[in-house]
């Protein structure tokens, strides 16, 4: 059984004051196996973010289903959704979304605190993660005292500390300089190597080239599914780049 199954997902936004409806997703289907690191690429307005929001149970599809471990997301009751997100999913955002009132340590522990875990358990989980993300020295600092890359590493730690089934990353390198971005992607690759399933929405070919698989989305539908199949990063980079060019050219032809 695939870990995540997306079936014929459609999302239609009806404008508030009449006008034509917007089809953000027009029937997206794919499956993810456990341990996959998948990038979703596409231009602005292609429907990437809508897809991610639906996967995160922040938004409801108009049609179609999302099955996580065989369970339908739309069946999770409203009042259990927060706990569901907290326990099954981890989030990494472009703007980090760290709370400036908390130290990095407390930011990382936040989901565990919300889940009501014991202090000892929290600290046991925190230490190895902080070590792997090279955050040990920074735990006592506040977000405004550290760099963007450090913030994003703390955000990764926050996403991973609940040991979620699936990590959803929305343009995680979007606000980082290239060195920090590279470091972050290596870390994501490292956690993927340890079996963590990751879905990452990105614009950046460099970011996508760290994934095992790239889904190209265009006009609300999957237009191509590119797998790495053992290629080196630089060769995968070229392949993605070519696929993108072809996709854009195709779009122009059609348009």
């Amino acid at each position, binding site marked *: 059984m695939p870990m995540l199954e997306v079936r014929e997902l459609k999302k239609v936004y009806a404008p508030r004051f009449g006008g034509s409806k917007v089809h953000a997703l027009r029937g997206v289907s794919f499956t993810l196996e456990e341990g996959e690191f998948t990038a979703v690429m596409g231009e602005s307005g292609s429907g990437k973010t809508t897809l991610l929001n639906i996967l995160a149970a922040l938004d409801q599809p108009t049609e179609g289903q999302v099955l996580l471990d065989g369970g339908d997301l739309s069946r999770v009751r409203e009042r259990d959704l927060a706990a569901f997100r907290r326990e099954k999913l981890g989030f990494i955002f472009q703007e980090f979304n760290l709370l400036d009132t908390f130290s990095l340590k407390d930011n990382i522990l936040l989901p565990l605190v919300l889940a009501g875990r014991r202090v000892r358990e*929290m600290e046991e989980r925190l230490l190895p993660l902080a070590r792997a993300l090279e955050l040990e020295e920074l735990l006592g600092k506040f977000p405004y005292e550290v760099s963007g890359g450090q913030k994003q590493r703390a955000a990764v730690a926050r996403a991973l500390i609940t040991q979620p089934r699936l990590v959803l990353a929305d343009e995680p390198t979007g606000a980082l300089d290239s060195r920090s971005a590279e470091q972050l992607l290596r870390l994501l690759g490292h956690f993927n190597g340890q079996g963590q399933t990751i879905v990452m929405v990105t614009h950046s070919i460099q970011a996508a080239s760290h994934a095992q698989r790239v889904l190209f989305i265009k006009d609300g539908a999957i237009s191509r599914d590119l797998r790495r199949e053992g290629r080196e990063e630089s060769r995968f980079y070229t392949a993605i780049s070519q696929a993108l060019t072809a996709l854009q050219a195709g779009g122009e032809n059609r348009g």
Partner: protein
Amino acid sequence: MGKLYPRLALQNIRRGRQFYLPYLFTVLATCAAFYLVLALNRPELWPDSTRYVYLSSFMLIGSFVIGLFAVIFLTYTGRFLSKRRQRELGLSNILGMGKGHIALTLGFETLYLALAGIGGGLLAGMALQGVCTALLCALMDMPPIFSAAPSLSAMATTAVFFAVILLLNLLLDLARVKLQKPVELLRESAVGEKEPKTRRLLALVGLLALGGGYAIALGVASAADALVLYFPAVFLVILGTYCLFTAVSIVILKLLKKNKSFYYRPTHFIGLSGMLYRMKRNAVGLANICVLCTMVLVMVSGTLTLYAGSEALIPRRYPGEVTVSVTYDPASETPLDPDALDARFAACAQRWGYPNARKVGQAAYTSLWFVKDGDGVFREDATGSGQNRSYLYLMPYETYEERTGLSIPRDGAAHIYRDGGFAEKTLTLRFGDGAVEYPVGEPLETIPDVISALLYVGSEDYYIALPGEALAQLSQLRAQSGLGGLPLNWYAYWDLGGDPASYATALHAFPASDWSGAGQFDGLTFRDRESFAQEYYALNSGFFFLGIFLGGLFLLATVLIIYYKQLVEGYEDQARYRILRSVGMDRATIRRSVDGQLLVVFFAPLLVSAVHLAFNFPLVRWLLSLFGVYDLWLELGCTLGVFGVFLLLYAAVYRLTARAYYKIVG
């Protein structure tokens, strides 16, 4: 183009109405209050000149306080509003709006606010003028006979005064815009506040100041001391409140944070770190709220007690409708003959149309300044300026017995009442070189009513009952030392049995009658209870009115500060709660966490205010004794009652504010 700026200004106000409406309301309310005190302070509208004197000075004080309050508070809120807008102004500047254009926009905004605030305030003031005059008349126990016509001069003064304040605020605003570069403007509100350090020195200063203030409150042992030390104590307590809120609140929060099993719980986690994060600002805000709450409580409860207490004072001070008083020397060859004087008064009363006049009581006493020469030894100090002075009330046994209904054994001893007791075995009174010593008998249980209703001076007062002969003997001794005979005051209390309103005029004519043949005396005086009561009510109701008036105004300030504080924090927290929801915090937990924070913000200052109020209580009791009020139960009842009402109002504000906050973050 010419209409752009007025329109832009109007738009800005409408868009920021959550912030501007309360500000407008503040301008309006302070403006109305200022107009009212000015309009009520007009001699030509008041029929009775003696009462007017008190009222006028109260209203004058009121207009000063309200004026000062208006300057401080409007500048404070104005600054707060403009700080919020720094970013927006910076952005307009970057987008190409020149500083002149910004100034024009701000100018129009101020113009609109001024027109609406001052105009509305004057209208509200005029509308309330009738109610206030009626209330004042009711408090003063007199018919509403004076006019509530609007006062043009009060209107003009108010309009000019508030226009100047708003103009100054505008200039301050403009100066701030001019001083900054666009980039700085943009950055202004994004700077994070660092987690505050524990400040031991501040905590120590706060502790000393507050302890000092409280120690004064507990240590004061006389009304005179209370009067002198009241404002120093208030100052110390206010200083202490600010220091302690800043230092101690941080210490407490840090301790709570260190306790991991407390801190790492969903509801505590968010609130605690949030409060710690903005503690410095928070602390000043909380201290402001606390100080204002305390002011309202102290002012209203004090003036209410005074007002409620006046009723009880009058019959103690005037046991009869009319008091006849003379001064005489008990050692003179033909001393006062009380019975003869009473007969003359009865005859006089009959002649003036009061055939049913009836004597209801009498008293005799004298009071002199003495200096303590040793334990139980007092020397009269007529110079009146030495240190260590005591006020001695001397009265015959009979006066004590009649005015208290208690009895004294006829043992020839001095019976003494003093706060804190009198430990000595003998009492020695010295006049010049002469001295006389009395054994000290059983202490007196209380102070006679007519004496206790006088201005009460303090713990260094002695109330001494002596045998009648002893007073004559003292008088001789005093005369020998060159000070003259003892000036004993004698009072007779009468009910005339007529219309009390007629007494004042009638008593005016009394001294012209024949008063000869009643012995040697001077200073024959007649006073009627009705006139005293009216004057007394005028004094106390003026106080009370001002107390309610200023109390209401300070309450408004408190409410506004709380409201703004929560509103601003709500907007700051908006983003935070969005993040929290996205990482899996559910609404119920958010609600609980917000509730916890709000409860602390509201009720921590109130709790401290309650403690302040408790320590203020003994001090105010001394002050009230200056007005002849010392009824513990009345004072306690008034204070607790005012606190209760305040609590209700405060809880209502809490609910409203909490709702506004949820609406923002929810």
